[in-house]
């Protein structure tokens, strides 16, 4: 065989055989394809770009590109005064507005060193836990849709409507509340609020069971999520995962227990951590299970709040709200347990001005998403969707 050599280009070899037949040999290697789950995509939960290099259906790398929803929260904080930042915090993780405001107010109240009335604390716990349920309903519903189960999404949203109605009754807004202020809450809860919340709790308990049967125990759903995206506990801690993500990896860590704030020490509730019987510890199903079981615990917390809340005689929700918020010079890092993890605020005050020198929001979703690149190596594309759904990101918080 006479080698022609002229077309020798790596994987292609051309040669001429004795009887003047030209033979072209190509290696059957496939190329990697760049697939961009671009900013507009039904299942990336917002404007997130995932650049995947795929070899067939297998993803060799999935790199998240952020910044499409960056709204300069931290720069705004430097020109707006302390109470004025509360609406901005709402808009970060817009599905859990009450929790965001609360985390920020905890930080500033630490700097101001003020005492919060007991009834205010109970109101804060109640609305935050209601918001936690609403947020988990969205997480579970959209996770179902990502995997093709269309119906649980609508059941979740139907129940979430009730919560949004309650929160609108209390604060005036359905989603972005501006209710939890520094030193108190904006308005007292209406007269029958506790009664209506109790009705909701009783209505919702069987619905949680129904949702569990429809989605979580569904054989196909379990097969799609069990054993996918396993994150060992020590790696999760190194990536600073928190909230349901960390508990899904088997770590008993909940800021309401381990770094308690407000009246949580007086409330009796469990922290669900999967034990590996129904799901593998650290996989997508575990994280989903944590959220599904947490909703019930939140219901328990709300019931205790209703029974333990002090009466409203002579109560002024704004009694401890300072007229002018001017904290002493210093810094604080304070955090709260949001539905998506730990939301922390690092606030630096110079003691003279009514605006923070620096206010950094440590957002749970930003940190949780940073593990995406390593978590997605070697997964199939549908599994990628399952993993993103289990991380439960809200781009408002990722980009701030």
């Amino acid at each position, binding site marked *: 065989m006479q080698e022609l050599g002229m077309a020798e280009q790596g994987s292609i070899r051309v040669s001429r055989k004795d009887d003047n037949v030209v033979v072209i040999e190509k290696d059957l290697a496939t190329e990697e*394809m760049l*697939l961009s789950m671009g900013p507009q995509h039904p299942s990336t939960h917002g404007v997130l770009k995932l650049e995947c290099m795929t070899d067939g259906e297998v993803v060799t790398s999935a790199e998240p590109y952020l910044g499409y929803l960056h709204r300069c929260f931290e720069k705004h904080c430097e020109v707006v005064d302390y109470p004025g930042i509360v609406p901005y915090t709402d808009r970060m993780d817009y599905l859990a507005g009450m929790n965001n405001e609360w985390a920020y107010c905890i930080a500033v109240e630490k700097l101001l060193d003020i005492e919060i009335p007991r009834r205010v604390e109970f109101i804060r716990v109640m609305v935050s836990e209601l918001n936690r349920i609403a947020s988990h309903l969205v997480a579970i519903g959209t996770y179902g849709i990502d*995997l*093709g189960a269309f119906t649980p999404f*609508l059941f979740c949203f139907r129940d979430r409507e009730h919560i949004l109605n309650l929160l609108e009754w209390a604060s005036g807004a359905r989603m972005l509340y501006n209710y939890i202020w520094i030193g108190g809450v904006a308005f007292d809860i209406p007269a029958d609020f506790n009664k209506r919340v109790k009705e909701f709790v009783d209505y919702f308990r069987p619905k949680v069971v129904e949702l569990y049967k429809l989605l979580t125990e569904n054989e*196909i759903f379990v097969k*799609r999520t069990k054993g996918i995206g396993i994150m060992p506990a020590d790696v999760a801690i190194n990536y600073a995962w928190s909230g349901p993500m960390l508990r899904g990896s088997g770590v008993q860590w909940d800021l309401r227990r381990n770094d308690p704030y407000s009246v949580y020490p007086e409330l009796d509730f469990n922290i669900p951590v999967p034990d590996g019987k129904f799901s593998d510890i650290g996989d997508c199903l575990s994280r989903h299970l944590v959220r599904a079981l947490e909703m019930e615990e939140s219901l328990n917390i709300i019931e205790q709040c209703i029974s333990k809340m002090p009466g409203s005689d002579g109560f002024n929700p704004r009694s401890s709200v300072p007229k002018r918020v001017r904290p002493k010079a210093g810094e604080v890092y304070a955090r709260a347990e949001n539905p998506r993890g730990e939301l922390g605020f690092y606030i630096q005050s110079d003691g003279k001005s009514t605006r923070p020198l620096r206010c950094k929001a440590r957002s749970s979703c930003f940190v949780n998403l940073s593990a995406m690149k390593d978590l997605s190596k070697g997964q199939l594309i549908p599994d990628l969707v399952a993993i993103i759904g289990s991380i439960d990101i809200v781009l408002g918080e990722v980009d701030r």
Partner: protein
Amino acid sequence: MSVSAISQISLPFLMGNNLNAWSDALAGLTISWFPLGLVIIAAIPLVFIALYALTYGVYGERKISAFMQDRLGPMEVGKWGILQTLADILKLLQKEDIVPTSADKFLFVIGPGILFVGSFLAFAVLPFSPAFIGANLNVGLFYAIGIVSLEVVGILAAGWGSNNKWSLYGAVRSVAQIVSYEIPAAIALLCGAMMAGTLDMQQISVQQSGPYGFAHFFLFQSPIAWLPFLIYFIASLAETNRAPFDIPEAESELVAGYFTEYSGMKFAVIFLAEYGSMFMVSAIISIVFLGGWNSPLPNLGSVALYDWTSGPVWGAFWIISKGFFFIFVQMWLRWTLPRLRVDQLMYLCWKVLTPFAFISFVLTAIWEIYVP
């Protein structure tokens, strides 16, 4: 066998006229040289698909899914939203026909066409009534199984011609799925053909007629018949890309799979093809296992329910109802179950359905040969 003896006696008794009376009459109708009758024969299933897809298909799906999801569905257009589909069709008709500049124009345009043709051609051998069948082939079942494979070409053309990586993904997945699931589907249907002893669709239906109504249906004629029935039902869900096998259209992963880039009338044609093939597989499973145009009601002594509900028009009613029932079950499954992942889908086909299909084939053969 006693079953065929009864059916021989009851044939003229049920119908009064012969099998295929209407289609034979229409076939002979010509105006000078133009075979008007043949055109009408071809047009009837087409009109049927259009009407059914318009009413039960799209509207029914929206309403059924709405009630399952605790909401109301279309309510604005017409009373209870009945005219909603008409409004949608009118909207789609007047939309701009977009062909992406970098798309392969020929493949892009022809994809939906081939898709629809592939699913519509199988309607030729569906007996809509004892008196009407498009083409009375004596290999009707074989033709129905085979011609559906033409859809695969259409899907590939649509996916590749869109010049969109997501469409390509959807098309490739769909082709793998359809081609794999044809095997258990065909074997399951062959069990039915074994029980009938023929591949002729009209004859299969005739073999299942008798005064005991549903007791003559092949599903109840053999203790193992439920297995090919189940296997064919599941495989047919995969053939028509319905959930839980709707990976090719997986909205949350691939936007809309192989028809992402389609809009306007081409999109409507693809949708019509999907609803058409839904009815086709429902009709095939009704014919092979549930008696086709035969009435399920038995003759109870003097209350001769079977005789009262048989006849050419009654036959059409029965097969359409059975088809609609299976379509309802398909919709029910779609809105309840999540979707299977591609490799789980393939595992289900090759390692679960195919072996069980073979087992049911052997068992049906044993039953047919050795049991008198």
